[in-house]
Structure formats: C-alpha cells, structure tokens
C-alpha cells in the first residue's frame, strides 16, 4: 500500500506541474544551465503565416573539400542578414536535396516578402575594377579590392540629389589598396561591380587616403538599406538560387487552427463519451488518465519546445487514439479475467500484465515508423512524427501506470462495486 501511495503522489505532482506549465498566462521559465523557456506554444508557419524558402547553393567553383565550409559560410551570412532585418523567431538551417546543398529559411509573420527574398539571395560580392588597355582593347580588370575589405556600410542620402546611397568604410588593408587605386587612376573611372553588374563607375577626382567612399546607383531606399546590410554582413561564399518558396498568409492559419481545435475537442469529447458509456467507472478513470496525458504532452510541447504545425496537431490527435487503445486493451483483458472468476484485484493485475506485451510491441513498431520519419522526413512530415512519437511515449506511461494506480485505489472502496458489475 505504501508503494501505491508514492505512485499516486508522484502522478498528482506530475499532473499539477504539467497543468501549471499549460496555463495560458504562464510566465517564462529560467532553467539555469538547461536554458530559458518562454513557455509558449511555438506555432509553425502553416499556423502563423510567413514564408518558407529553400535556396540551393552553387558550389561548382569551389573545391570539394571546402564545400562543407562554404555551406556553413552561406548559412552564417544569411543568418546575419536576417538578423539585421529584424524578423522575430526565424529558422535558418542547412539542408540537402539529393547531392545538392541547400539552406532552408523560415520567416514567420513577415510582410515584405519579395524584398526579403531579393536580399537573402543576393550574393553581394562587391569588386572594384579599373580600366586597362588602350582604345579598342580597353576593358575592366579587377583591382584586388573587394567587399571583404569593408569595415562597414551605411545608407545615407546624397545631399545634392536627395538619392539614397551607400557609404562605405574600408579596413586598414582596404584603405591602403583604395589609396593606391585612386592614385593610379586619378581622373580616370573606377567601376564598382556588385555580383554581375557594374552599378557605378565614377571618375576619381582626388586621392582618397582615409578609406571612405560612397556607392551611388539607382537605388530605392529599401534596396540601399538591404545592400548596406549585405555588405556589412559579408558576401555569400557561393551564389544561391531560390528553388522552393511557400508563402502562407496569416489569415489562413488562425482559421485552420480554430477549425482543427474545435474538431479535436469534439473528437476527444466523443471518445470520452464512448469510453464512459461502454466501460462505465473504468471508462471514467481512463478519461481522467487521458486528461493527464493531454496535459503532460502539451507541457512537453512548451518545454522542449516543439514547433506545432497542422500535421503536428494531427499527430497529437492520433496519439490520443493510441492512448485510448492501450486502455481498451487493458479493460477487455480485465473483463476476460473477471469472467474466469478472478477477484477484481487479481483481474486488474492480470489484465495489465497480459495486455502489456501487446501495448509494448505495437507502440514500438509505431515508434520505429516515427524515428524513420524524423530521420528522413523534412518539415511537415517531421513535425507530425515528433508529436506522434512524444504522444506514444507519454501514453504508455499514462495508460498503464496512471490508469492502473487509479484502479488499484478503487479496489476495496465503494467504487469497487461499479467496476465489478459494469465491466
């Protein structure tokens, strides 16, 4: 009896903690070295709206052994750019499609999508060119001064034309190179090339020693701002191409959530009704265990945290089905044991013992599927598998331990009668 009451207390404490975390108005939790949790349900793009982008890197001009490094470089540069944009909760990840390396970017709640896409995908390789040769043969050649020599870049308004322009400042080495270039090319044009285009080719009026300059061109303010961000955060090591884009409007999300939540609640209600009308008292206990189950899973979603998508919600609802299944298995087994003339206490123990191998084997095979999905799947499929796997693991605990403890508590009390007769 003592062991039993410890289990009961543990279950109650766990349930209390779970529901405490589940409260909508819960304050953020500081777990010290385990990190900080804001205890919000993190909604995926399909619920919150936003844009999902996949960029493929072109690594053809880089040696194979440096691919991994360049891939990381692209990720870092894109990350810096997005941080400068000030998007809340972006995710930027490396990905792989076949043998192609990709960067997957998710920007929730963003409105100026097109501008962002243009900015993220820009290689932003800045080069300075000077003229070589005479007459017909005259052409632009690289000076060795590039965007890598920049210390900073800012947007400013040209006081004469009122046009936005980008003010740049070189680092020490860049300033030295710039001085030499301006010396060499006094009264001659020097071109500023951004990726494939020459955006301006001003004529050098004087030797510039302090390593400062401006880039003028036909920029809009946003373009100038984004260029400044890209120049400061560094060029991408390789060019990238947008191969997948999904914009999800913010209006579709809340509507879907609301509908799916109503559906889910109705589903759970129907299941509870069925369990109680079919199994009576044990059914009530199973529904109670199910409530604790939902509480724990939701708390885990907040704590881990799991980003919830529509597919994820579906996975959660299905795991409820599996949790109910475990209880049905146990109750049916208990009924059989009772029919052979066992006492209620013995039937409960035997029912759980005998049903356990079914529950274990069937849940493990579902977990195998989930693990494969988590490993192989992308975005949507993975979200589904994660919530389903979590649900299965928790349901094994609640359906077996929690329900059994409740049933054991009922043995020897007035409740026993209702269990015995209706089962």
């Amino acid at each position, binding site marked *: 009896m003592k062991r039993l009451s410890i289990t009961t207390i543990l279950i109650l404490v766990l349930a209390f903690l779970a529901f405490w975390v589940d409260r909508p108005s819960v304050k953020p939790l500081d777990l010290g070295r385990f990190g900080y949790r804001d205890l919000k349900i993190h909604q995926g793009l399909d619920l919150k709206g936003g844009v999902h982008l996949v960029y493929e890197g072109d690594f053809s001009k880089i040696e194979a052994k440096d691919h991994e490094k360049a891939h990381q470089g692209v990720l870092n540069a894109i990350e810096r750019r997005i941080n400068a944009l000030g998007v809340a909760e972006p995710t930027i990840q490396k990905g792989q499609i076949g043998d192609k390396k990709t960067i997957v970017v998710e920007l929730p709640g963003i409105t100026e999508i097109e501008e962002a896409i243009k900015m993220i995908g820009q290689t932003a390789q800045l080069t300075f060119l000077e003229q070589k040769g005479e007459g017909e043969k005259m052409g632009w050649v690289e000076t060795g001064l590039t965007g890598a020599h920049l210390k900073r870049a800012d947007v400013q308004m040209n006081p004469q034309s009122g046009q936005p322009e980008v003010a740049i400042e070189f680092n020490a080495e860049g300033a030295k190179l710039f001085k030499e270039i301006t010396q060499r090319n006094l009264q001659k044009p020097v071109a500023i090339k951004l990726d494939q285009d020459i955006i301006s080719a001003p004529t050098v009026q004087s030797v510039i020693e302090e390593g400062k300059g401006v880039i003028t061109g036909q920029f809009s303010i946003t373009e100038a701002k984004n260029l400044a961000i890209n120049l400061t955060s560094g060029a991408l090591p390789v060019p990238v191409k947008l*191969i997948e884009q999904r914009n999800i409007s913010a209006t579709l999300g809340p509507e879907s959530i609301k509908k799916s939540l109503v559906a*889910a609640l109705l589903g759970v209600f*129907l299941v509870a009704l069925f369990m109680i009308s079919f199994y009576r008292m044990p059914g009530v206990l199973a529904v109670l265990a199910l409530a604790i189950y939902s509480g724990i899973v939701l708390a885990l979603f907040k704590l881990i945290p799991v980003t919830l998508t529509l597919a994820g919600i*579906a996975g959660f609802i299905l795991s409820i089905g599996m949790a109910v299944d475990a209880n049905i298995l146990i109750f049916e087994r208990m009924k059989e044991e009772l029919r052979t003339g066992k006492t209620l206490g013995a039937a409960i123990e035997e029912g759980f013992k005998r049903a356990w191998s*079914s529950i274990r084997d069937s849940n493990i095979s579902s977990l195998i599927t989930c693990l494969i999905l988590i490993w192989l799947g992308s975005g*949507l499929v993975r979200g589904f598998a994660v919530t389903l796997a979590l649900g299965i693991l928790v349901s094994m605990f609640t359906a077996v331990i929690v329900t059994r403890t409740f049933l054991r508590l009922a043995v020897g009390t007035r409740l026993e009668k209702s269990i015995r007769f209706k089962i």
Partner: protein
Amino acid sequence: MGSRKKWWFIISGIVILPGFISLFTWGLRWGIDFKGGTLYEVKIKKEEVKIAEVRETLKPLNLPDLTVISTGPSTFLLKTAQIEQEKVDEIKETLKSKFGETEEIRYETVGPVVGKDLKKKAIWAISLACLFIILYIAWAFRNVPKPQSSFKFGISAIAALIHDVLVVLGTFSIIGHFLGYEADAYLITAILTVLGFSVHDTIVVFDRIRENLKRLPGINFETVANESVIQTLTRSINTSLTVILTLLALFLLGGETIKPFVLALLIGITTGTYSSIFNATPLLVVWQRRVKS
C-alpha cells in the same frame, strides 16, 4: 474461420481492385510537392466572381499547365508548372485590373529537383519502415513455440500492411481523378500513419496467438488463431471506433487544408482493422498449413 478464409481474401481483392485499376490507368495526381510547380491561391474582394471569368482573364498570360480550382466564395487556387516570381506578379496585376482588390492566401513554388527528392525519400521511408517492422516482429515473437517461425508473423503483418497502403493509394487515385485531390507530402504522412496503425492492430492479434500457443500446446494452429481473433475482436472494433470518431470529427469540421490527409487516414485505418483480422491472420494460417502438408 475455416472455409470462409478464401472469402476474406476475395473481399479484400474486391476492395483493392478498383483502386488498383485506377492506379494503373489514371495513376496518382501528383501535387507540386512531388512534381514541382507553382501554386497561387487568391481571394478576390469583389463578390461572386465565377471561375470561368478567372480562366478567361488569365488566358492571355499563357501560363504553362494552368488549372484553376474554386476553393471558396470568390477564392481560387491556380496551379501551373513552375513559373518565375515576375510571372506571378503579372497574374496579380491582371486579376487586380479586372476584378479590383485581391488578397493573396497562399503562394508556393517548388523546383522539380525538390519534388524528385521527396519521392525518393518517401519510398525510402516506407521501405525502411517495413523492413524494420518485420525485423522487430521477428525479434519480439522469437519465443513463439516451434514449428511456428517468427519471421512468418512479421511478413504476414507486412502483407496486411501493403494491402492497406494499396487501398489508400487506390482510393486517392480514384478521388484524385474525380475530385482533384492531389498526392502531396501529407499523403505520405498519412500512409506512414496507416502503416503504424495497421501493424498495431495486427500485433494485438498476433500477441494473443503467441500467448494462446503457449497456453494451449498441441491444439492445431488454425483453432488457436481463430480463438485469438475472436478474443481480441471487441478491442479491435472499439479501438478503431474511437480513432474513426476522432478522424470523422477532423474530417467534417477541420480546416480545408487537412481534409485529404484526414480522408486518407480514415480509409487506411478502417481497412487496417479489417486487414489485420481478415487478412494477416488467415494468411498466417494458410502459410502454416502449406508448410505442414
């Protein structure tokens, strides 16, 4: 079960057949997730815009492989082969100039490489899942009394599972043809769930066979199998009922986007219950008898 066994297989055959034929003649309607393409869903603020008007308005743009579907009042889903952002802007402008204010609901564009990769991954995921489930069942049932072999349990379970997956794919091929439902990444998720549930059901029956074989040594296998199916029948039906109740609620009330997904689950889980009772176990019995004679 006895002589009725062959009827169970025949019924399954009849259920699979239309889908099977459809799969081979019409195939699946692959969504942009698999074949690549661009999808643009737009709500026109002006009320009562007809789908024919939208089609007519977009005609001059010569969009590759354009299909227009109505997804709500004055809301349309345009699907084309993959097109550039500029072309999408053109669509927006054209609709705006003809119908006034519009609101973009969804815009998705997927390159063909991405789709190919998803197909490959899906096939891998399903094959791997099957393989590991066979291995796990073979291991979990390793103590089954001789002359039964635990691998037969695993393979029979997978046979029932392939049956369920075929039913889902077949149904999708049929409704894809008539209602325009597409095979997308959600369908793969649904199939994998069905796969999990089907094995779930089968294992419950097999577990009982395993137990009864140990409890009642010397009794012929067919009787034991028959007894086990009957003993687990209430559980099988009750469990499926609860899952089907939840899914039905999701199907009737849930968001439009997950409807095909939920439908696939509904079909798969219903047939999954059927197949583990009426296919997996009889298969095991037939196989057992073959070996003996």
